C-alpha cells in the first residue's frame, strides 16, 4: 500500500507492506537514521518520535498507521542551523555517552517542555522514564532538560 507521511515538514511517499514499522520507514525512506531502533519491544525508547506532536515509540506504530500524519524526528529539532535548547542542554551538561538513547531522550524531553516549560526534576524523570540509558546517565539528562527549560525562560524574557 502507498503511504504518505510528513516527516519534519517534508512529505515522504512510498509503497510499503502494511506490516512495516514506522521506525524502519523513517530510517529507510528519507534515510533519517537519527531515530534509533533498539529493543523492538517498546521498552527502551531509543525510537521515540513525535506523531502529530505526541511522543510515541515508533517501533510500536505501523507506518500505515502514520499515513497522512505528521512525524517529527530528532533531525527536526534543529531550526535554520540552530540547535534546539534541548540539544544544546545535552551538549552543555554532558547528557550523553554512547548516544544510543539520546534521540529518544531528546524527543521525550522536547514534548515535556512544550507542555510544561518549567518542570520539576521529578516531572523530568517521569517524562523520560520511557527511555533506557545504559551508560547510566540519567543525572545529566535531567540536568540537561533543566538547562533547556531555564534557557528557554531566559530567551522568552529577553523577547
Amino acid at each position, binding site marked *: 500500500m502507498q503511504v504518505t507521511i510528513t516527516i519534519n515538514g517534508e512529505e515522504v511517499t512510498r509503497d510499503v507492506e*502494511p*506490516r512495516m514499522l514506522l521506525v524502519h520507514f523513517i530510517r529507510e525512506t528519507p534515510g533519517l537514521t537519527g531515530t534509533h531502533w533498539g529493543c523492538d*519491544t*517498546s521498552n527502551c525508547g531509543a525510537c521515540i518520535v513525535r506523531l502529530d506532536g*505526541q*511522543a510515541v515509540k515508533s517501533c510500536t506504530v*505501523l507506518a500505515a498507521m502514520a499515513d497522512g500524519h505528521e512525524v517529527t524526528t530528532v533531525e527536526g529539532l534543529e531550526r535554520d542551523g540552530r540547535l534546539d535548547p534541548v540539544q544544546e542542554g545535552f551538549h552543555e551538561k554532558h547528557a550523553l555517552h554512547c548516544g544510543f538513547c539520546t534521540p529518544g531522550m531528546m524527543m521525550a524531553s522536547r514534548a515535556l517542555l512544550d507542555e510544561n516549560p518549567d518542570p520539576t526534576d521529578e516531572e523530568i524523570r517521569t517524562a523520560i522514564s*520511557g527511555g533506557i540509558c545504559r551508560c547510566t546517565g540519567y543525572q545529566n539528562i535531567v540536568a540537561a532538560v533543566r538547562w533547556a527549560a531555564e534557557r528557554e525562560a531566559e530567551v522568552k524574557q529577553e523577547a
Partner: protein
Amino acid sequence: MQTPAPCGYERATSVDGALAALAAHGPTARLIAGGHSLLPMMKLRLATPEHLVDINDLDELAYIERDGDVIRIGAMTRHVELQRSALLAEHFALFADAEAVIADPVVRNRGTIGGSLCQADPGEDLSAVCAAIKADVVIRGPAGERVVSMDEFHVGPYVTAVADGEILTEIRVPIRPGAGSAHEKVERRAGDFAIAAASAAVWVGGGTFADVGLALAAAGPITVDVTRVGELLRGQPPGEELFEAAGAIAAEDCMPMADTRGPVDYKRHLVGVLTKRALRRATARALQQEA
C-alpha cells in the same frame, strides 16, 4: 529484527465501518487500537492476524463524560486521558493511581482502555480497576449492542466476552454516594507489569460499608475478583482489623503462579499487603480523611 507476519490493513472511519470490515474478513481479522499489546505479539508471531482494522480515527469512541449517575468512558480513550481526567479524579481516584504506574508516559500517549481490557492480560491493571468499581462494558456487534458486567467480560486468560466480529465501545461506571477507591501496585522497575496489584472501591453510608469491590492483577490466570472481601466488609464499620482480615482472604483466594517476578508464597503475601493498603486508602478517600 522482529517483524510482524504479512497482513492486510485498512482504516475504519466509523464503528459501523469497523464492524463491516471485521465481517468482511472473518475471524482472522483484528482491530488495532493503540497497538502496544497487539504489535509486540505480532512481532513475536504470538498473534498472526491476516487483516488489521485500524480504529485510531474513531474519535467517536474517545471520551470521558458524565451522563446522569453514570460515567461513560469511550473504548478509544488513551491512558493519558484517563490519568488526567478531572471527572475520574473526583469519582474514581484509582484510575489516576493505576495510570501513574502503567508503562511509561510515551506508551500512555498511545494505549487505550478498550485495548487494555480486550487484551485481558492477567497482569494488566485496568481490568482490576474496572472490576473493583463494578463497571459494565458495552459490546457492539452485527446483531446490535449488549452490556455485560466485568465478571461476564473476563472469560479466561487473554479471552473476553468480545466475540469475533464485535467491538468493545464503552465502559460504564455507576456513580454511587460515599465512594472511595485506590489502586496499589508493586513492580520490579518503573513501567513494568505488576508483581501483584490490588484495586479497591468502597461505598460508605451511615458509618458502614454499603458495598465493596476488590480485584487483583497479576495474581492468577485471569483478573481475580475477590468477592469474599465484599461479603466480609458489607454492613461493617471501617476498621483496621477488617482490612487485616480482608488482606488474609485475598492472599488465600488469589491464584498466583511462580515466575521471574517471584515465588507463590511471596506473591500471596504481597497480595495481602496491597489489599490492606488499597482498602485503607480507598476508605480514607471515601471518608474524605485523606490529606
